């Protein structure tokens, strides 16, 4: 099992990925400017010294598939998921599985995470230690003390900073689609391949709603889920939730992005494999 790349590899040394180059090497040494996310060891130091700005060898930088996790680590992720677990636990597990697959395939993993207080990036590396570091970073960042969640900020950061083609894995909760997200997703989808992993939020009304006292991590105010025992209100809620899900699905489908929904850790492996399968079959 590996993460399938639809676009043909344009370098010669890209392993199992299908290449657009056939025959022998042309010893092609194309250079481009360094952008964050590129590996330091790909930098052509001689050319950099001549020009004065960092330059990387394009064929080396694009040789390997890079997996970029874009993770919301606002305090939404410290809230509970549909299954009652903390959402970031599910996110970390999903990241670990996808990251391990990528590492086993010889790919590299990178991370962009954050909240409105700041978005942070960790560069791509292909070691397990690095992956472990990424997981710990996400676990440590997504606390109730973090800022509010604004996934659009991390998406815009990734769109602005990562010029090279990557495999993007977005780990988010049930985000509400707005104009900002639509715009940045359109841009990202044109540039990268994207997998979308949604961690389902706790139900607030209806039969599956947790009957425990709860509070909203956005405003830190109480949420009276007992009021949702009202059938009319539960119906309104269900209609509204369906509309939100529909908006996100519509956006992703229109961009050819496969999505997985995970409610608790027991579903992670199954959902991710189904996601990879869908992604592989998609055109």
């Amino acid at each position, binding site marked *: 099992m590996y993460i399938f790349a639809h676009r043909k590899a344009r370098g010669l040394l890209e392993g199992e990925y299908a290449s657009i180059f056939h025959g022998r090497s042309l010893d092609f040494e194309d250079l481009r400017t360094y952008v964050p996310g590129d590996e330091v060891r790909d930098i052509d130091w001689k050319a950099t010294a001549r020009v004065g700005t960092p330059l990387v060898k394009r064929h080396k930088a694009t040789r390997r598939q890079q997996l970029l996790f874009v993770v919301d680590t606002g*305090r*939404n*992720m*410290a*809230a*509970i998921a549909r299954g009652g677990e903390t*959402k970031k636990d599910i996110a970390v597990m999903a990241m670990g599985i996808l990251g391990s697959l990528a590492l086993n395939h010889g790919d590299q993993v990178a991370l962009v995470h954050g909240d409105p207080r700041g978005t942070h990036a960790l560069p791509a590396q292909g070691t397990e230690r690095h992956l472990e570091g990424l997981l710990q970073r996400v676990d440590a960042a997504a606390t*109730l003390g973090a800022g509010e*969640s604004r996934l659009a900020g991390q998406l815009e950061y990734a769109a602005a900073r990562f010029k090279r083609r990557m495999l993007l894995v977005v780990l988010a*909760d*049930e985000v*509400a689609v707005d104009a900002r997200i639509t715009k940045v997703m359109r841009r990202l989808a044109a540039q990268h391949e994207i997998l979308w992993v949604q961690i389902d*939020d*706790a139900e*607030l*009304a209806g039969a599956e709603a*947790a*009957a*425990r*006292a*709860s*509070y*909203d*991590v*956005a*405003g830190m105010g*109480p*949420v*009276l*889920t*007992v*009021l*949702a*025992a*009202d059938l*009319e*209100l539960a119906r*309104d*809620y269900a209609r*509204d*939730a369906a509309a*939100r899900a529909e908006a996100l699905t519509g956006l992703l489908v229109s961009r050819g992005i496969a999505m997985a929904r995970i409610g608790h850790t027991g579903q992670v492996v199954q959902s991710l494999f189904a996601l990879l399968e869908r992604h592989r079959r998609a055109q």
Partner: protein
Amino acid sequence: MELKFWWLLPVGIAALAAAVVLALRKPGRDGAPVPVAHADRLTALPRYQRALAAQRRWLALGVASVLLLAGSLLMAAARPVSASTTIPGQVNRDIILCLDVSGSMVGTDEAIVGAFAELVTRFKGERIGLTIFDSSAVQVFPLTDDYEFVAEQLAAAKKAMNKDTANFDFFAGTYQQPGSSLIGDGLASCVTGFPGGDGQQRSRSIVLSTDNMLAGKPLFTLGEAAALAKASKVRIYSLNPNDYSEGTYADPVAQGLKDASATTGGAYFPLTSPAAVKSIVAAVQGTEAKRLNGAAVVTVADRPDVPLGLGLLALAGMGVAAWKVRP
């Protein structure tokens, strides 16, 4: 209005405050609340906003009701009392009308009954009884403070004693013995009309109307009956319409009655006409009242009606709130 246990108020308020603080600090039944994200999925719904406003309203009512209930019960526990000053003698009297209904006395009796029929409307706590006698005594009604009944009986007696009446049923039983105006027996019957027992604190008086014209052989002489009255601490006020004393001449018949009254600490009033009865009765009442006016006594009465009424209201509010608020 004052509070008997006023010190309960600060104690109770402190306890109430402690309870509120404890209730606020104690986590809910479900333990700590759990964090949820995207709560606007629910909270942004107009129907949720309306339900929340209603919940807030009923909760506020519930909290206000609980506080009101606690406050009013605290107030009631502190015993609001009102003190009033009363003169106990005024309402601590027993009077028995002891009326000789021989033919010569009927006009006087009617005046006495009429006077008391008027007086009884102003009675508060006094007890009154009526016994009539001729050769034998009949208790028309015993000592009672049922003034409605008394007024009814006195009206019936007054009607029967009218000289134009043709109905003599009222006097049935007063001719069981040979003779007439057996005063000693009649008076003794009246004296025994007072309840026995040593613990009695009420003053006792008999308004005795007779001309002391004894005809027959009584079991008790007037003197013996008077001694009985004295032993029972009953004062006798005698009204005699047929006193023939004039100047220095003392009517021996009237004198006997006078002496009998005096031995009991009562008084004797010769009557010149039935019209004078009213003033004499007033005088007797005045004498008795004066005699009985003791030291003013402060009576303390509980006044829990307002706090308990508020408590009931608060309970109703709590009921409504508990019904409307979702747990």
